[in-house]
């Protein structure tokens, strides 16, 4: 039986039971708790780092840090937002004082070649420009776009996850999209 909630970002599902058991030392419950969140956490890490290797590193570091700070996890709330917030904090602290990651890597964020799986060089350029604009966004705006585009959360759930009002989520999402479009237009004009 799949215990994964249909809305892992906003519905707790079995997270409170598993988390309570894990906090009492039940390793199996802890692994099950992590396993139910792994794909969402992976997408979160990939959206933060935009790089497969970095995402794998962040994924493991997040789970390791979550294990160390398990007693600080909220019990009566969904576990995934806490994990995602931890991942963002870890990445922020890791990148502090370091140069920003390359906005567009030598490969796609999933590790594939840029020409793989695309329809041609024209699409690759569009993708690279969009990724460049996304990378230049503020991390909070990146997080909003990730929740909307990658996790496909409605505005109300984004509002619950982030703590922002729906109006503010709507406005910031629109501005983030507009900024990405402006970056893409600049790139097209330069080309």
């Amino acid at each position, binding site marked *: 039986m799949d215990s994964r909630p249909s809305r892992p970002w906003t519905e707790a599902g079995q997270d409170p039971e598993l988390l309570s058991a894990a906090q009492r030392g039940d390793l199996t419950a802890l692994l099950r708790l992590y396993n139910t969140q792994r794909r969402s956490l992976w997408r979160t890490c990939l959206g933060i780092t935009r790089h497969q290797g970095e995402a794998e590193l962040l994924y493991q570091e997040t789970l390791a840090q979550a294990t160390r700070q398990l007693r600080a996890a909220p019990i009566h709330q969904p576990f995934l937002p806490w994990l995602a917030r931890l991942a963002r904090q870890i990445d922020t602290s890791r990148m502090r004082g370091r140069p920003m990651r390359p906005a567009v890597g030598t*490969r796609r964020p999933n590790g594939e070649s840029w020409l793989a799986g695309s329809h041609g060089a024209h699409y690759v350029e569009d993708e690279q420009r969009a990724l460049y604009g996304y990378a230049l966004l503020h991390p909070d705006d990146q997080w909003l776009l990730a929740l909307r585009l990658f996790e496909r959360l409605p505005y109300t759930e984004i509002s619950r996850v982030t703590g922002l009002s729906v109006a503010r989520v709507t406005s910031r999402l629109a501005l983030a999209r507009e900024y990405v479009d402006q970056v893409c237009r600049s790139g097209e004009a330069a080309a």
Partner: protein
Amino acid sequence: MSNHLSVQDLSASLDGVLSGPALEQLVAHLAGCHACRDAQSRLAKHDDALRRLLAHDPDDRTMDELARRSETLVVAIVRGTPEPPIVTSAPLAEEEDPDAPLEPPLAPDLGRPGERATAGGFGIIGFRPPVPTYAPPSDPDEVRRLIDALEKGNAGGLDAANVRANVRANVPASEPLGEPLDEPAGPSFDRVEQPGMGEAARRDEPARHYEPRADAPRTDAPRTDAPPIPSGPAAPSGRGFAHGGAWSADPPYHDQVHPAEAARFSAPAAGSDPMSREPRREPAWSRWGMEPDPLDPGTYRQPITDPFPIYARRPRAGRNRIRSQIMRASLVSALATVGGLLALVLVLRPSSLATDHAGARPAGSLLGVRLPPVLLTPHAHDDTSTRTPSAVVGSPDVRDAATRGAVETRVPRGSAADSSRAAAGDDPHAERICGQVVNMAGEPVADVVISVLGAAATRPGPSPVRSDEQGRFCLSATSGPHVVVIERAGLSQRITVGFAPGAPELQILLP
């Protein structure tokens, strides 16, 4: 005012949050506005591009492998055992080669021989591959049957495992080729979700193989700086990119945490392979004398109390030699400079002595260097014939003279009566010069101390003198050039004045 839709409306329309009249109004506007349709399509295109790039779900096998590594890490943390190094299957961003050619990934079947060759140690300088360098023997009958089956379209009837087993049977046992990488993987991580599936049960499972993604690009092939040596048929490549340079097959990690994994990465028995070498059992960060940074997970730092960089702090022999040579040259040059200065002083000292009387060395001059040449004018009253060298030698100034024979310089020296006459100002050979001290505005300056620099014999008149209210003064000295010192408010100025009969009035201009 613009008649076009705002970006908020366009963004909301893409997310489907508009409804009712707002949606109808938007649809009606889009139907007639090409610019807004274009803007909306552009936003939608960017959304799709970002989804393609970042909303990537890896396949179950890759996800299971990542979850397995994370599980090992979590178990180590919970049990308090040493944490294994964090391993990634792809290089980190800073480890990537920016000059790597951007080419599409190889087909899965094309990439495998390369991986096998790398796993076998081929292509590594200074490392002899433990696997045979010749092609494995083939069974002609088996190949013929395979070709026939392919021609007849009955390839499905062939048992690939039998073919592989037949081929492997012809290979000597001492020269394993290694297990193919596309063996069926072990139990999935998802089995953990089954109730009652405890940790101990999973530890008894057979070793799982890490199989890279079928579409993995070639540049994602593992590094070859520390390849594990295949020790038997079950030895896989088993290599991944390790964070911080740590190797994924570290025995402590596998021995203590995951025995099944330890079996996978077991080192070859000693003496089983003459070319075998001791695997590096220590993580790279440990070999480099670093330790994990507890404040910054994933990074490593030099230990505060670790005596690691002792040899680095110790100066090298070559540097010592160069430094001693530099010091020696500096010392020699400093000594030469001091010696030269001393010689110069000693050479110049007699000239000052020539102008001085005993004990009347001019103040403010460095051993007489600034003194102008002295005109030695013989006078009738000079009784030099009565002076004997022995009498001169007895004076303190003569004893100070080291190089030039001060006794040979005939210094005009008046008798006590001459000195008293000169002090009274009634010396018939004294020349008198008067003048005025003015400032830059031409106004007279009073109370300026003016003196003749020199011994008593060259100063027949009163010295120093002060300028009066009109700035006027008079100086007396023997005929000839003399240094006149003008002092005012702590500032000193020197000029050379020629004392001669009928000399014009001296005009001293002060700043």
